């Protein structure tokens, strides 16, 4: 037993020393606001929220990775108000979120696409008689970003964007680009398209935009999987942005909060070119009609891509929850969390953290009754 004694003694000592030294000083961080106020700020913060007792327990959800940055803000805000509650969110992707919600492993979920009929049926079966709540919790512009020395912004018509991403426009000094940018000093650099390699709601949204805005050029049906072969691609928003930064003459689409110092495209809508901004994206959502024929608690949007003055490539990411849960604690947690999520405070926190567009009051008023109806059944 010498060997096992010694190696185990070794690793035990190692782990033990590390564990002890770390366990002695580890903790969850104090809320940033309360650092000065000796913890007194904590209680006032709780009071400023809902008129209810502090919630406790663990709640796990998952889904669209686009929501992650905002979700981090929501979770933090909610956990600060309810120190005994822990909210987890697995950014596994929209499909994973919908599946997990359907089989009950996620109590709430985020999805970049609305549930289709089949998924809705599965979710309703899981949730029970009360049915499903679905609403747009997160609206964010998708920027078309590029890396060209000395150029911060370019104007492009939807057909031009589609041509570039299809690989038909291959050089930055192509006429189609030059025509809309008479003042820009366009280099002859080859265009390198970078797209998302994972299945993603951002991709689906962008494809959908191209399909609607430039139907003659972009003929592929949007599916979440990039239809063009042999192009550069990368994992996640940070991946595509990193790839674009690494190359010259590269272009991609990514959640607007990610594009950092890259150049961005002002997208042609009608006769004008619109730079991406949270406000312009919010406008699209506000002016697009709600999907008809759904239940009261399902608030989904039919995005219109050609409303003048709005930024048409807006990602609308939905939140999913049940109206009834098996136990009171879960129901309260979900209700409390979603209430915070759609509240003005929550939406502002997301805007600060993820550059998203806060929900309009109209939409908030339309979805709050659904959230408030969440109960144990």
């Amino acid at each position: 037993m010498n060997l096992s004694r010694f190696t185990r003694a070794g690793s035990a000592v190692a782990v033990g020393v590390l564990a002890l030294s770390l366990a002695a000083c580890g903790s969850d961080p104090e809320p940033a606001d309360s650092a000065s106020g000796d913890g007194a700020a904590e209680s006032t913060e709780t009071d400023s929220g809902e008129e209810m007792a502090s919630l406790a327990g663990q709640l796990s959800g998952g889904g669209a990775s686009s929501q992650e940055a905002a979700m981090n803000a929501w979770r933090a805000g909610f956990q600060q108000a309810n120190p005994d509650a822990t909210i987890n969110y697995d950014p596994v992707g929209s499909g994973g979120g919908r599946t997990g919600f359907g089989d009950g492993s996620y109590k709430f979920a985020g999805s970049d696409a609305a549930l289709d009929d089949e998924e809705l049926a599965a979710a309703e079966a899981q949730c029970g008689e009360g049915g499903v709540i679905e609403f747009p919790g997160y609206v964010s512009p998708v920027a078309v970003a590029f890396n060209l020395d000395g150029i911060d912004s370019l104007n492009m018509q939807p057909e031009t964007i589609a041509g570039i991403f299809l690989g038909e426009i291959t050089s930055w000094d192509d006429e189609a680009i030059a025509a809309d940018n008479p003042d820009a000093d366009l280099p002859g650099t080859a265009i390198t398209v970078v797209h998302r390699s994972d299945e993603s709601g951002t991709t689906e949204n962008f494809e959908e935009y191209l399909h609607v805005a430039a139907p003659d050029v972009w003929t592929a049906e949007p599916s979440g999987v990039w239809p063009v072969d042999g192009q550069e691609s990368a994992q996640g928003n940070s991946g595509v942005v990193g790839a674009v930064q690494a190359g010259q003459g590269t272009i991609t689409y990514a959640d607007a909060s990610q594009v950092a110092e890259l150049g961005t495209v002002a997208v042609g809508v009608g006769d004008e070119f619109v730079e991406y901004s949270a406000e312009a994206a919010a406008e699209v959502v506000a002016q697009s009609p709600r999907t008809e024929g759904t239940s009261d608690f399902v608030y989904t949007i039919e995005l219109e891509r050609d409303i003048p003055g709005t930024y048409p490539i807006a990602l609308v990411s939905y939140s999913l929850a049940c109206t009834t849960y098996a136990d009171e604690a879960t129901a309260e947690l979900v209700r409390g969390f979603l209430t915070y999520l759609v509240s003005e405070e929550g939406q502002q926190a997301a805007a600060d953290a993820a550059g998203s567009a806060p929900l309009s009051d109209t939409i908030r008023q339309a979805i709050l009754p659904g959230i408030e109806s969440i109960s144990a059944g």
Partner: protein
Amino acid sequence: MSAVTGTNATDSSARTRALLTAADPGRRRTDRIMQGLIWFAFAIAMVPLAWLLWTVTVEGVGRMSIDFLSLSMRNIFGGDPGGGIYHAVMGTLIITGIAALISVPVGILTAIYLVEYGKGWLARSVTFFVDVMTGIPSIVAGLFAFSLFALFLGPSVRMGIVGAVALSVLMIPVVVRSCEEMLKLVPNELREAAYALGVPKWLTIVKVVLRTSVAGLTTGVLLAVARVIGETAPLLVTVGVTDSINLNPFEGRMMTLPVFTYRQYQQGYAPCPAGESATCVADIAFQNAWGAALVLIVIVLTLNLLGRLVNRWFSPKLR
């Protein structure tokens, strides 16, 4: 006469000198070239390795602080430069520790079985299947552990122990293989010498075989731990992610350092209003990723060093 002998002596001396100095230039050149290539191999290998360590250190050291090591990421989001990796460090230590507790005894005992007892179909199939097992992709090991536990505990199961089981599946074959190699290197003379003294077989294995190969076994186990401590994919599907501290491997999600690194990298840039740099750092997620990578490497380094010291202190002085 003497003159003749003298000439003969000088002659043979000159011939001998010619023999002893006439090294074949071709052979000498080959020797030189190979020596150069071997030094060069080492040099070019050291470049990326040193470069990587240097990058991780330079990028990661800026994030190092007591807070970074002793706080979790609970309630930290966006460009907030606060918080730390405490939860991930503990998660990694606990999960890897459990994986090692499962794998090391099974692995070493299997190696002993193969080297000392193994005969017939069972030994052949164990050898064969250990080989097969090394081929399990890490993500598949994760899926296996997940579905095993999900069978009993439902699909929302995310616990440290599930990750530890996944890591064990990856770790056991590595332990078996390296320990088998090491045990095989123990000369049979030693075993026979022990038997000749009337020492029973199990005691021979423990006192002679294991003791002789303890250094090699430690290396093997360390390599195996090193192999799994940085695994990301299987932990993503089995342990999940969390921002809060959880020291209980049997309940709730845990964070681990590799997963933390990957998650932070994936979060990418945080949107920061211009001018406000103190409370919002745009690339904080990348800094966190590099910082966690540095800590992960330091932990591995420390474990290695401790392992070696223990090995040096305890292994028998054969020479």
